[in-house]
């Protein structure tokens, strides 16, 4: 470790703050035009083929709009805030579990992958 490097803690906090900030404050102003595949599907007339799976009718935050909020931009920003922190939590938790599994395996002395 050289002194010029930022610590992983600072790196994590800054990068996460950037992600949360973008999802919360910038996403309400993102382009509402259909995206690549959606545009092509519209153009070529197969957009109607698509639909939601039954389980998705009960999605907590359908279409990135936080439910119960009138203002569309606020609803999108809030969805971005909650979603980004939620996805961070899932990814971090998954990585912690994977590290713990590896730790347990190594302490048993059968770490096959290490070589």
């Amino acid at each position, binding site marked *: 470790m050289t002194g010029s490097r930022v610590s992983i803690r600072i790196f994590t906090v800054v990068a996460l703050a950037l992600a949360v900030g973008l999802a919360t404050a910038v996403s309400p102003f993102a382009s509402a035009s259909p995206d690549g595949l959606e545009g092509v599907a519209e153009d070529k007339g197969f957009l109607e083929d698509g639909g*939601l799976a039954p389980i998705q009718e009960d999605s907590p935050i359908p279409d990135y709009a936080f439910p119960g909020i009138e203002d569309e931009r606020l609803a999108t920003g809030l969805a971005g805030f909650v979603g980004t922190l939620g996805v961070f939590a899932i990814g971090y938790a998954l990585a912690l579990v994977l590290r713990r599994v590896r730790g347990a395996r190594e302490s048993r002395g059968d770490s096959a992958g290490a070589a």
Partner: protein
Amino acid sequence: MPMALHIPDGFLSGGVTGVAAVVAFAAVAYGLRRADRDLDEARVPLLGVLAAFIFAAQMLNFPIPGGTSGHFLGATLAAVLLGPWLACLVMAVVLTAQAFAFADGGITALGANVLNMGVLGALLAGLAVGAGLRVLPHTRVAYLGLVGVVAWLAVMIGAAATSIELAVSGTVPLGVTLPAMLGVHVLIGIGEAAITVGAVSAVLASRPDLIALGSFEPPRPTGAPAAAASA
């Protein structure tokens, strides 16, 4: 409200979603196994941060000419920082959360979305960055250029794969979708390349040791022939 796309349910046939799901699941399962090797202490928070950043950036649709928009995908960025296999894992986390919590992308199409937007790009990056470094000069500019080209290519390959899946499903002929998908994604890929290069340069400036593809660290002594020669 426009349906935000990833492939929704209904675009692909059962056979195509099944095959795509098996391939995607295999790559993700191997990613879980590779965590033994690839997931060091510093990459534990990095995995969470990358998932968060990719989720956030995928919400930021940028307009492209022709009345459509595009958004960042992130497989190349994830592969550069975590290696290709953990990148498959991160992309699966993001796309699964989007499908179940945000109704973005189908449930039966989830495997196809993970394959097109995650696995193909991540594995391409794993192969192409390694191969490129063998022929390119070992400079920051060459590295970032290579990463940008690979990010663009990953988007094009994802678009092509989607077109092929749609054609095999009998939804729309390849001759109709492929040119349209590639045409739109030529521009979306440029956005992908710009964001990927920007993010990778920020990591190079702050924590170059977090770059997994292409070492910017002094080479580790791995039973070094040099040491053997001097003995």
